[in-house]
């Protein structure tokens, strides 16, 4: 029987790779009797889907080049590659 710690690791890995048949069975067995890990699994899945569906404006801080940097880049670009 898997511990919650091992289960949590598989719950995450499931988002990065295909689990083996044995791992899937062990995972299902643990999830069958563990509310916390079930919740954990739902929340991680939600987190990944939310990031995948979000736009760049949601995932990244509003940021602007400051004047000094802009000027430096402008000068460098004028010299050409």
């Amino acid at each position, binding site marked *: 029987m898997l511990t919650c*710690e091992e289960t949590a690791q598989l719950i995450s*890995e499931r*988002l990065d790779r295909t689990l083996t048949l044995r791992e899937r069975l062990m995972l299902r067995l643990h999830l069958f009797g563990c509310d916390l890990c079930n919740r954990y699994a739902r929340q991680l899945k939600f987190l990944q889907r939310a990031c995948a569906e979000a736009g760049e404006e949601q995932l990244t801080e509003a940021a602007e080049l400051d004047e000094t940097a802009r000027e430096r880049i402008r000068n460098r670009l004028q010299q050409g590659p």
Partner: protein
Amino acid sequence: MLRGRLVAEKLDPNAWLDRYGDVLFRYAVARVRDKTVAEDLVQDAFLAAIGAVATYEGGSTEQTWLVGILRHKVLDYFRQSSREKQLQHEWSDEQDHDFDDEGSWAVSIDPWRTPEKAVEQDEFWGVLRGCVDTLPENLRTVFALRELDGLGTEELLATLDISTKNNLWVMLSRARKRLRQCLQNRWFEKWQQDVDV
């Protein structure tokens, strides 16, 4: 010849900095975090783009094309800097306090009410970004490249010089675990109290 002329009319390098400078900077700084590094990467991307104007085929917008070039620069940067810093060593000695000696949860995993409504609110994304920023740099980097850029296991290994797949998957698992906890503390718990009252 005709094609060359059309391309020349379409791409306008002199206007790039004004038009796309901020967009590109925002993209870069979200990934490398260091402002100066991000500025340099934007400059490198523009220079590479100027040199590659002839290869632009018009299949994408000017902005998408430039972001694609910047994306390569960002990955190159990680390839170089992770070799120097050996990212993967940072996590291994870290103790995991989220589980007890038997491997059961030592922290509470509370239910999240209506997460699908949370994603519709700007404040939620501010909290999520804040949580991502609390991650140690190595975890933040793997998380960003995995979930913002959708890189797969092989690409991540090649880019970040992490020695084994297992190390990578443990890092991703820790990043997600911390983020989940942070979102619970900073968003779902607060928000649920407000509603329940």
